């Protein structure tokens, strides 16, 4: 198991939230249930307080901003649409089909997933491809745990994810001549999917995921642009072929399969060198910071891309 660190802010920087479950308690649960490399590393260093702090500016984004500034085109293209138009979305009951090149395909009930794999808190940076960012305390479990339980077959090289299609509950899926194609699909290489940082989140700030954030279960890949984090997942399929991904289908020259955060590779229509910090700054002074390669997780993930031309495989 790889012992590694990922940079986190101090606990003391976390905005207190009502109902917020203690980080340590959640973390402990995660270790017991999952027993993953990531969790062991956390335990070994004596808890998050030992980790070198981020710059003071990088504190968690207020919950209200996390839940009211969303890209979730199934509900609409405005940032405020998901919070405003997701009222009729029903995240329960929910099941996730795990199939494809696995030894044990299974239809998981959401509650069983949570029971089997537990929940731990992960404070991650979230960098949107639109050059803004947040810092979000997610609750969830490593995708690796689920994939290990499913048993990837020899030859499986990619993981394909499928989101939900419910036009009656998701106004953005109705009509929409110019919209994305539904269902929203995403994909990872198997080694990316197995990386301990890759999270299946079922909560944020210690609460169940609100509909607008991808209820009831979503992907979080903190070193990639936010659109890789497919929401409201219904199916996870292992394949030997690189799966299609929604934004890449929409505009292949603007959105690659990898979508690793990279300040040196601009989006054709805007610079990726820096990012606006949501929840900070004021009307006449927006808060910005330089964007980091792999969103600051280079130490943990750069080895996955050795020998690759990140300009070509953007």
């Amino acid at each position: 198991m790889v012992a590694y660190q990922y940079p986190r802010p101090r606990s003391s920087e976390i905005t207190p939230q009502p109902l917020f479950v203690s980080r340590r308690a959640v973390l402990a649960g995660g270790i017991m249930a999952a027993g993953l490399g990531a969790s062991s590393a956390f335990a070994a260093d004596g808890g998050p307080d030992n980790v070198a702090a981020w710059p003071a500016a990088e504190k968690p984004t207020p919950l209200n901003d996390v839940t009211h500034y969303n890209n979730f085109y199934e509900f609409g293209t405005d940032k405020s649409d998901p919070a405003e138009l997701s009222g009729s979305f029903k995240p329960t009951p929910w099941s996730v089909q795990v199939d494809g090149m696995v030894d044990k395909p299974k239809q998981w009930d959401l509650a069983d997933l949570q029971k089997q794999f537990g929940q731990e808190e992960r404070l991650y940076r979230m960098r949107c491809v639109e050059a803004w960012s947040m810092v979000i305390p997610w609750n969830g479990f490593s995708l690796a745990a689920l994939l290990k339980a499913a048993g990837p077959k020899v030859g499986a090289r990619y993981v394909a994810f499928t989101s939900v299609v419910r036009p009656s509950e998701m106004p953005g899926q109705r009509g929409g001549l110019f919209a994305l194609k539904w269902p929203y699909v995403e994909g990872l290489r198997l080694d990316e999917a197995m990386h301990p940082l890759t999270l299946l989140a079922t909560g944020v700030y210690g609460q169940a995921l609100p509909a607008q954030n991808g209820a009831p279960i979503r992907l979080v890949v903190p070193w990639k642009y936010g659109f890789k984090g497919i929401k409201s997942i219904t199916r996870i399929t292992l394949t030997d072929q690189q799966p299609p991904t929604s934004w890449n289908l929409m505009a292949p020259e603007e959105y690659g399969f990898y979508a690793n955060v990279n300040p040196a590779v601009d989006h054709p229509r805007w610079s990726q060198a820096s990012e606006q910090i949501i929840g900070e700054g004021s009307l006449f002074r927006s808060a910005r910071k330089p964007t980091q390669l792999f969103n600051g997780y280079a130490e943990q993930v750069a080895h996955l891309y050795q020998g690759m031309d990140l300009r070509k495989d953007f």
Partner: protein
Amino acid sequence: MPSSPSPRRKRARFSPVTRQVFLYLFFLFPAVLDIAQGMTGALGPNPVSVCLHDFGRYAFRFLLASLVVTPLKRFLGVDIMLYRRPLGLLAFTYAALHVFFYVVVARQLDMHVLWKDFTSRPFLTFGILTFIILAVLAATSTRRAIRALGRKWAQLHKLVYVAMVLASIHYSIAFKTWHVEPFIYAALALFVLALRLVPKQNRRKVGT
């Protein structure tokens, strides 16, 4: 055309210039409202982006409105020629706010990034060209400039048609996916521009 007192006006309480100023100030209200809300936190998590986009849309609307004035008179006989200049100046004002929020607030005067933006990203190139035209037209909208330029003034101000086309393209390609709204705006813009192509002798037919 310089504004001349309309024959339909009777016993106006305010002078034409006063009425022009009133109209201009009245339609600054959306900007004042956005800025006030942005400063008090009522515009949500990203007030900069709300202001940026709102002001861009208002610039488009007032540019469109200024171009409606002439066909309105020609085809429907409604004369609001007096308000063409303040409408044009409103378009410029909102465009200036839009550019200010992009260049100063969002991009924080990062010249390296801005240079690349305006020279290599088509939607921003179209945008900044539109703004340059509007700035030239606004600067030559004074009585003195109109008099000094004489015939050339009318020719110069035909650039407003170019600005309308550039703005339509800028808005249409500004999003990650194709949005319907910019195309509705662009269609309206094309319509008011196309009205200019109607030959004078046919006007009765089109007007009815």
